[in-house]
């Protein structure tokens, strides 16, 4: 569950990214953040992933208030969360396997367990057998699915995605959304920033519309 309570976010350059934002994404819900670029979608995701902290107001994720979380607790906090980016953010000099295994490696997971879970995650996104490929050998759609496998390999309770279909055509985008839907169906809370209205109409259980740093819907 993700709860924002009267959150303001002002960046050091003075830009007011979020103004008095209150929102709530229930456990196991698939929610979309919509709005134009600069409306505050990315700021909300940064606050959820603790890349940023609110200027005022509180952000509570799975009952944990992020503003009181000490810096040294952030890695463990992030391990309970899967993040997918628009530009996949894969390490191109490492094979697919290493990319997907990264969240498990940083969590000191035993090797055998890593092996099992990496294969399971690749299987879920339909890329089993591509372990040894380099990300650059894969299509854009496949790269994004590797990114999703990496996000879910740690069995997160929350999945956060920033424009995950921004670089994909409509058919591929729907594939990716169906993938997110499958994780939502097994209880994962999914929060996706997207400006693709048709996808939002098709998949959103909850839409949070932003305009100029404020929630309008």
């Amino acid at each position, binding site marked *: 569950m993700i709860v924002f309570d009267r959150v303001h976010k002002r960046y*050091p350059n003075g830009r007011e990214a979020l103004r008095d934002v209150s929102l709530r994404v229930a456990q196991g819900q698939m929610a979309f953040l919509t709005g134009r670029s600069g409306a505050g979608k990315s700021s909300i995701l940064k606050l959820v*992933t*603790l*890349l*940023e*902290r609110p*200027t005022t107001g509180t952000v509570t994720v799975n009952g944990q208030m992020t503003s009181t979380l000490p*810096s*040294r607790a*952030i*890695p*463990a*906090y*992030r*391990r309970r*969360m899967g*993040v997918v980016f628009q530009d996949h*953010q894969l*390490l191109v000099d490492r094979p697919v396997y290493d990319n997907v295994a*990264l*969240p498990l*490696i*940083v*969590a*000191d997971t*035993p*090797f*055998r367990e890593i092996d099992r879970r990496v294969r399971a995650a690749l299987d879920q996104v339909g890329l089993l057998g591509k372990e040894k490929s380099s990300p650059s050998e894969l299509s854009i759609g496949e790269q994004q699915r590797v990114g999703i496998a*990496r996000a879910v390999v*740690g069995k997160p309770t929350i999945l956060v995605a920033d424009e995950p279909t921004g670089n994909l055509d409509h058919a591929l985008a729907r594939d990716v959304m169906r993938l997110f839907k499958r994780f939502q169906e097994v209880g994962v809370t999914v929060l996706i920033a997207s400006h693709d209205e048709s996808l939002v109409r098709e998949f959103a259980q909850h839409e949070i519309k932003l305009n100029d740093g404020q929630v309008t819907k």
Partner: protein
Amino acid sequence: MSAASSWFSRHAQAAVAALGRLLRRPLGTLLTTVAIAIALALPAGLWVFTSNVRALTSKVTETLEISVYLQPGTALTAAEKLASEARRRKEVAKVVLVPADAGLEQFRRQSGFGAAIEALESNPLPHVLTVQPRESATDARSMSELRKYLSAQPDVDAVQVDTEWVRRLEAILYFLQVAFIALASVLGAGVVAVIGNSVRLEIGSRRAEIEVTKLVGGSNAFVRRPFLYEGFLYGLFGGLLALGLGTLVLAALQEPIAGVSALYGGRLGIEGLNADETLLLLLSGGLLGLFGAWVGAARHLARIEPRD
């Protein structure tokens, strides 16, 4: 797998990964290693020089003697008593009593003034004690204490010891010691800077990877680990290369030193680092590298923390 063996395997993995990265860009690694090696070899060379000078002077001080002239007319038994008392002191290695008669006889033989001495009515020479201090007691302070003790004894007329050159030698050795510490500090800081900078550049070029690692929950310690190993390895390789360079220089010096040594009756020789010193050099290299990597990594890693 237990937590400990998992911890161990993570470290082994980080170390191997760091080694792999160093070997993948051999030229850069070599240049950095050479810079570190030179920075380590210079103070190590000064150390070797200093310890060789010290070894050489300790051989010289074996011949250091104090001459104690007794009052003319002192009984031989009193002189013998004085000698045996002096022998009991812990800083004294050896005491030789040269009785007045023996002294005169020696003088007669060596000086060529035989006839003139024959003409003397009585022996003008006093009994003389030749006191040789232990090697550990040849520093200026011990020498002056020993001298004070000897001067204070009854029947002693004069004590003669040339401590001036001992003091000079000690001053030179002290200077070399200070120079070593200064040089080692400056060049050690240089090693830290070289490795810190190289790690900083490396971190800069792998920024994307670090950001992703931190985003998926990698702690600062996890991200820092391979860089620390890299710094340690740089320092260790630098130390090994410094040893190699030092060995070459020593080998090149052996022949000229043998030449000099022959002129001085074969007393000279040059010793390299012993096992402890070798270990210390490698360890210093590694630890300086570790520290440099830490310094280089600290600021960069803090950058992708959340801001309030």
